[in-house]
């Protein structure tokens, strides 16, 4: 298994035995007045792999954009014990790796190398370290030979893997993925599930793919209407037909 964080020194966040992520009573409304989050409470512990499910418009994407401070509403949020403030923003953005749903938004550089190097470079790391991290991140997603490829030549599945590499190169403590399996053919989806399984990082994954949830994630958080409506063991939640139906989900 590839080693993804060989150099913990660049990330001075303390190891937290308890909550890696702690969100308390998050509220957020978009400028047009539409409330997207209505009192979110969420705790993630180091090493957990958690699925985030719910119908479209439940507020999943909005919540994800809060986790590294791109959107800020009211309430408290802390990552590895650090409260989300202007001063802590660079540290928190390096610690929370956010992968967007559409890889064409995530991969904005002409070449794969430049995209994977973007994060470490903007963390202010020295060049040799940037190169090393790019190699490690590409190796972690098994795409080392794609280093010099042009992003627009990649298939959707390849783009998704590179998109994950672009945040792995920042050595995140928490990986946040939005709909990673959407738009993939069965083989690419299978390869992605393998990848997510073997990556040794804490994960929060938003998805409609309940079959993948059952296979990969021991814990599931269900959102609807800007609130967490259920949070517990995946096995229990996916058995609960009434709960699933009440929130527009189908048993896998």
């Amino acid at each position, binding site marked *: 298994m590839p080693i993804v964080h060989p150099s913990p020194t660049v990330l001075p966040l303390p190891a937290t035995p308890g909550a890696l992520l702690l969100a308390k009573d998050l509220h957020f409304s978009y400028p047009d007045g539409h409330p997207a989050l209505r009192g979110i409470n969420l705790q993630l512990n180091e090493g957990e792999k958690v699925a985030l499910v719910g119908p479209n418009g439940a507020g999943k994407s909005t919540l994800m954009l809060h986790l590294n401070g791109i959107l800020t509403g009211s309430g408290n949020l802390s990552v590895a014990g650090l409260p989300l403030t202007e001063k802590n923003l*660079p540290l928190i953005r390096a610690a929370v790796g956010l992968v967007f749903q559409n890889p064409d938004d995530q991969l904005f550089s*002409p070449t794969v190398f430049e995209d994977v*190097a*973007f*994060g470490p470079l*903007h963390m202010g790391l020295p060049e040799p370290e940037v190169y090393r991290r790019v190699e490690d991140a590409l190796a972690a997603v098994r795409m080392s030979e794609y280093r010099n490829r042009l992003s627009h030549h990649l298939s959707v599945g390849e783009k998704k893997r590179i998109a994950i590499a672009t945040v792995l190169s920042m050595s995140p403590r928490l990986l946040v993925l939005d709909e990673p399996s959407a738009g993939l053919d069965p083989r690419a989806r299978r390869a992605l599930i393998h990848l997510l399984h073997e990556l040794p990082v804490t994960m929060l994954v938003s998805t409609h793919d309940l079959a993948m949830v059952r296979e990969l994630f021991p814990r599931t958080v269900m959102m609807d209407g800007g609130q967490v409506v259920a949070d517990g063991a995946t096995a229990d939640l996916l058995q609960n037909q009434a709960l699933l139906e009440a929130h527009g989900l189908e048993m896998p």
Partner: protein
Amino acid sequence: MHSDAFDRYHFAESRLHRLDPRVKVSLTVAFILGNALLPDASWLALGLAWFLLLVANDQSRLGLWFTFRRSFLALPFALAALSAIFSPLGDPVFSFSVANITLTVTDFGLVRFAGILIRAWLSVQAAILLVAVTPFPDILHALEHLRMPRLLITIISFLYRYLFVLTDEVLRLLRARAARSAGMTGQKSGGGLFWRAQVAGNMAGQLFIRSYERSDRIYNAMLSRGYTGNLRTLHPHTMKPSDWRFLGLALFALLLTQLTGWIR
């Protein structure tokens, strides 16, 4: 069609491909500049320039006639230069009348016309060769090293990345338009000129909004990866001794071409 058709890079194992992109960009500009500097009617020098181009083609291992075969891009524009043959300077060669107007072709005019076409044709081949042997991102790096403003380079590299995404989007829109007007095949496709242009305009508006929103999402993705308003880049290119040697040799050849053109 996939917008891969926009790619101009042709891979081969060659000296030209390995050359530092700065050398390639500078030499291309020097070659085109040299063509512009040559006086009209310096046929020998223009021939020499073409010879150099053929040597470069050969060195690229893409085939001796690689750029020749792709070089007729500028041809439609040649129409604009056609009127040069009627230059009042120089001696008349022959004249003819069209609708009561007598047009006189002069020797100076013919030389001028030929000079323009040959220069254009050589210059475009140099540019074609440059992008065929250099990946476009490397050209951008070279331009940055050569002190083009960073902001402009950044905009161009975003443009390069999203050109493929957005042209795919346009092709989808066009396909959807074609699908909707499928019932009218054989007839003149629906509506008048105004209506057709308005449909294109609505598509442009739709594309604009989508692009605008996409740029928001890209900005978020950049912020997520530590962007704070200052773009940083790596500098992976360093000039090797062989790059310097090639540059010197090529510049010497270009100088020789100039001398050929001017000494008579």
